[in-house]
């Protein structure tokens, strides 16, 4: 059990060191996030729709795109250098491999989301100071569920044709439940509703996370083993 997490950590660290040394992917993702936010700014009529009404949608659509983009990268590097075969030969369990990949993806997406959230507050003048704690909780819970399934699928789609297109097609249905609850909770937070109203959505997000992290961990070996 201790080995499981130790190996997972080693995998995650390897990915992250590689990532932050080159910084190409993370920079691209951050710039992409900024551009999506800018597009949203011009994609609405500010005199007709108050910002706060569509702020949750803007935030979550941006995060969805950014997450999707980040996932495409997860196994790409491994495949390009045939490093995946080496990893599979290493004496570590498949569960460690999955959890490590998941952790690396989460750190990557969290970094992009942090940048996105700051830009979002800046561009759309949303007062975040009051609600930053609960909002980070909502974002974290929604991201874990989404990225858990995404990490599993990205291990599959890299070996298919049209991988870049296949991932969103397969993954978007799995994004719906977390998205629905996250948008709802975010809207309530922006509207300064009491925290107790958000608790329901948080519980549902947590349930989704538990179910899909478990399921994806159990199913992952089937996607890499012969």
């Amino acid at each position: 059990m201790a080995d499981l997490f130790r190996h997972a950590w080693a995998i995650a660290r390897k990915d992250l060191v590689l990532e932050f040394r080159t910084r190409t992917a993370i920079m691209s993702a951050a710039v992409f996030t900024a551009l999506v936010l800018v597009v949203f700014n011009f994609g609405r009529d500010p005199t007709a729709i108050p910002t706060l009404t569509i702020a949750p949608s803007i935030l979550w659509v941006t995060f969805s795109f950014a997450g999707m983009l980040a996932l495409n990268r997860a196994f790409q590097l491994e495949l390009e250098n045939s490093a995946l075969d080496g990893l599979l030969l290493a004496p570590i369990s498949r569960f460690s491999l999955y959890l490590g990949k998941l952790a690396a993806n989460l750190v990557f997406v969290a970094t992009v989301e942090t940048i996105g959230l700051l830009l979002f507050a800046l561009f759309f003048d949303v007062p975040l100071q009051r609600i930053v704690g609960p909002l980070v909780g909502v974002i974290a819970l929604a991201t874990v569920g989404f990225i858990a399934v995404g990490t599993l699928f990205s291990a599959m789609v890299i070996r298919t044709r049209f991988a870049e297109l296949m991932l969103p097609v397969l993954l978007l249905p799995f994004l719906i439940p977390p998205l629905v609850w996250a948008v709802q909770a975010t809207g309530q937070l922006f509207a300064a509703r009491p925290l107790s109203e958000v608790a329901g959505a948080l519980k549902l997000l947590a349930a989704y996370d538990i179910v899909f992290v478990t399921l994806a961990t159990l199913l992952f070996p089937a996607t890499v083993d012969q």
Partner: protein
Amino acid sequence: MSLVQRGRWVTLVGLALLAGVYVRALVFTPVELHQGPAQKIFYVHVPAAWSAMLAMGLVGVASILYLLVKDARYDRFAAASAEVGTAFSLVMLTTGPIWAKPIWGTWWTWDARLTLTLFLFFLFLGYLLLRGAVTDVGLRARYSAVLGICGLVLLPFIHLSVYLFRTLHPMPIVLKPSAPSLPGVMLATLLFSVGVFTLLYVGFVMQRYGIGDRGEGGGTHA
């Protein structure tokens, strides 16, 4: 007689009985007073939805069995069931809005059940697209089994998410399709139709299973 041929006969019997369902629904089942003749769409819509759900459920079960015992027949069955399920989903998704327009006054609403059926259709499409995008037979079987299982687990969550979402933000004037207690004649017609659609599902799957790999443009063994 091969499986494909037997499947054809089952399908033909199913289609003949479907004509029987039409006759029974149109001639021998009373018109509902508030909804008018459009209510009779119910007799094809609900059984189609039943068959589509059955197909998805069996895709999930076959996927689990495949990953447990790695028998290619389960994969073949899952592929057949998914394709047949797509056809039934299409019936469900076309007849649904045609019923909703005169009764609810709109072709489409994001009602919990509607959204669920739409995503059922998307899952089937994604499943078939994934199968088409993998050439290696073993890889294709394992990947689609993973997706089949995830899809089955996802459906209750989608229903839950939309259901809670919409009850918190009520729609303006949408009549809720509360399960009405049906008069005996209508219930009998519905059950007859459900039986016929199940038979059609069986016939289609037998044919599709018999056709096997040919339906997917072959594949390479690695």
